[in-house]
């Protein structure tokens, strides 16, 4: 097994881990959303890389080519990209509202404020 044969998977995993690290290790909400977007793009790569055939071409039928790359992952990922941007838009809307309610978008400061209000007025 040469190093090149599974290279695409390792790139995907590196990007996935990078995105995951940004989501769990950074407190700023907007940075978390960017990390989530990176995670999503790594998943696109995870689906499309196995579909590629070396020597093939884009899956648009014309008479000159005989070998096409697999079109099925492309369809799924097209949907996934648009859903991803929808998620990003909603997440950013939430972040803006949180900023207006708490005055900050840092996760630990929000938790501190929540704890402070809990101490003053515990839920009945």
């Amino acid at each position, binding site marked *: 097994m040469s190093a090149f044969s599974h290279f695409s998977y390792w790139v995907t995993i590196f990007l996935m881990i990078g995105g995951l690290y940004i989501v769990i290790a950074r407190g700023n909400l907007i940075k978390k959303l960017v990390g989530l977007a990176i995670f999503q793009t790594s998943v696109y790569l995870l689906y499309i890389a196995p579909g590629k055939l070396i020597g093939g071409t*884009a899956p*648009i039928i014309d008479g000159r080519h005989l070998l096409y790359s697999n079109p099925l992952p492309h369809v799924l990922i*097209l949907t996934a*990209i*648009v859903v991803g941007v*929808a998620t990003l*838009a909603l997440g*950013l*809307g939430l972040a*803006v509202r949180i*900023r*207006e*309610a*708490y*005055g900050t978008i840092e996760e630990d400061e929000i938790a501190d404020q929540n704890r402070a209000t809990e101490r003053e007025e515990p839920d009945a």
Partner: protein
Amino acid sequence: MRHYLVLRVVAKLLIPFMLVFALYVQFHGDYGPGGGFQAGVIAAAAVVLYAIIFGLPTARKAIPDWLVETMLAAGVLLYAGVGVAGILLGGNYLDYFVLGATPVDGQHRGIFWVEMGVGITVFGVMLKIFYMFAGRGREPDPE
């Protein structure tokens, strides 16, 4: 930003081309890369550029809010409507075979309308989200 002459001139040159390219991508989605999603996003990007350079109220006058919200819903309704048309003409829901003279013709027509609906919805949503983000003022910190 309307005081920067270079930006204004370049934007005025580019925006029609961007819109035409968006239409090209929409209608040539059958023969080349493209389709509804890309076309909607590119058209929305063109209008966003217009709003950035010439100001949000100007863009709001050119493409008013009610139009954007109508387009949001109209695209999805168009898609669902194609499905219902399939039922009315004798097939199952979203059956394209019955829409035209021959099955292949029906497929082509069905795909065209469906991609149109998707393009309209995506354009409306992206533009609406931009309007909402850009139209909201920055709030002072609660003391």
